């Protein structure tokens, strides 16, 4: 994805501690129980969207209230939480959500993917492979992969019930006849456990392949649309495609300018109005871990530091 070089103040986390006077993780116990039951059924029927009674949260809609409610129903004192937004731990959205949980639960947080027990995410799956026992919670704006083709909920529900996904394939094939390839870059639909077509949330299709047989549990929460769905560990997840047009992920002619990785999803950073640009890892933790062990990109160190500050919003 393309990011404009914009300077904005970095949010400082000062004096974070558990605030008394809330229920643990904010939600009341009845709501947690209802959400927990929905999560269990979601795991039992991989890819099927389970309705739940979404509650008002003290964060604006569009800030991932579905994911937040799932995390609030899971989180306990032993957890270590990581929150990312488009690959970064430091955006306003990620910082606000992390602060919300730190203050209402007192749990530890981390930026390290390998260290986290719960990872709440918007728009990315970390580059560091997730391990067994971890849970990744996706914030989902539009859970229904068929919504763009069929606006009526009663109809899409029937289509899932009967496993009638012909319209989806027709749409993808139209893409191919118009563009020569499938043009969908984000929210590329997947078939879960050979039964339900599901939306992977607005992740780049680069991340779709990580979902297949992932050792971690994947949970998806849509607050406004009141849906929860899940992909258990080691479940087959196939991006929809055709024999003559197999699914392909994005590729770049560049490596990360900071860490030199040729395997990560890259953000394009516009550096001036003369067309200057460079490419860096979208996943800031992955990029930092690589640099910490000596991997180098093409940029001089001083420029790297400036870019790192921009990515963090300093």
């Amino acid at each position, binding site marked *: 994805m393309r990011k404009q070089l914009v300077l904005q103040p970095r949010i400082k986390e000062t004096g974070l501690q558990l605030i008394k006077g809330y229920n643990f993780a904010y939600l009341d116990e009845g709501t947690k*129980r209802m959400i927990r*039951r929905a999560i*269990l059924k*979601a795991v*039992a029927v991989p890819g*099927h969207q389970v309705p739940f009674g979404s509650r008002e949260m003290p964060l604006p809609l569009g800030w991932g209230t579905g994911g937040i409610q799932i995390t609030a129903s*899971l989180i*306990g004192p032993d957890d270590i939480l990581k929150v990312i937004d488009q690959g970064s731990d430091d955006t306003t959205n990620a910082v606000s959500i992390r602060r919300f949980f730190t203050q209402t639960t007192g749990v530890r947080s981390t930026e390290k993917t390998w260290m986290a027990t719960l990872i709440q995410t918007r728009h990315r799956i970390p580059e560091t492979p997730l391990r067994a026992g971890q849970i990744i919670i996706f914030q989902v704006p539009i859970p229904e992969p068929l919504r763009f083709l069929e606006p009526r909920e009663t109809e899409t529900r029937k289509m899932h019930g009967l496993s009638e996904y012909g319209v989806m394939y027709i749409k993808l094939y139209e893409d191919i006849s118009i563009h020569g390839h499938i043009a969908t870059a984000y929210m590329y639909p997947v078939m879960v456990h050979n039964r339900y077509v599901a939306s992977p949330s607005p992740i780049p299709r680069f991340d779709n392949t990580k979902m297949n047989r992932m050792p971690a549990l994947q949970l998806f929460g849509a607050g406004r649309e009141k849906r929860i769905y899940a992909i258990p*560990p080691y479940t087959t997840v196939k991006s929809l495609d055709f024999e003559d047009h197999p699914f392909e992920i994005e590729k770049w002619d560049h490596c990360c300018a900071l860490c030199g990785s040729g395997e990560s999803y890259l953000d394009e950073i516009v550096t001036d109005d003369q067309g200057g640009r460079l490419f860096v890892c979208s996943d800031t933790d992955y990029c930092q871990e690589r640099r910490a062990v000596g991997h180098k990109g093409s940029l001089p160190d001083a420029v790297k530091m400036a870019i790192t500050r921009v990515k963090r919003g300093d």
Partner: protein
Amino acid sequence: MTNAVNMSNLLPGFPDPVLGSQNTFRQVLDAMAHPGRVIHLDTGIQSPRPLRGATTAVCLTLLDFETPLWMDLDEKSDVSGWLRFHCGCPLVDSPFDATFALISRGYGVPTLDQFNAGQDEFPEQSATLIIQVSGFTSGSGRRLRGPGIETFERLEVHGLPDNFWMGWHLNQRIYPLGVDVLFTASSTLVALPRTTAVEE
């Protein structure tokens, strides 16, 4: 006042209700995400007879006024009063009307087709069965495959009727409809979601 709960011999629930439920839920979720894996619950609770620790913890964690329950125990049993006090779940006479079923004697589990298997558009409305059995042997026995299992898992469940696995096979054939099962034994738990294929 036949409906009044006798408070004099009522056992308490979790020492810490909020974190007790949280911890138990994570164990149940871990079990559901890894079918056939034996999970040990550290519940620290006393159970009304004939329930055992894992069963008690699962009930406290998942049941409330929104979950009609069918059980194989008498309305006058200690469990009935305990459930009404701690969970407040309505008891139903017909297995089909239940969203949860509590089966305290695994060898007497009704055939699975008596429970709600959900509908095409609402497979999540199917029943979840909590079946108390006498124990598990993992690493040998039946071979389990499906989502949540990397290759296969081996498990024997002790204290089930012979026809249970035939019923499970039929439950599998109506996927994505079907019931889901939580087996409990003493302080251990094993989940069997409808996606799990079981071979001899």
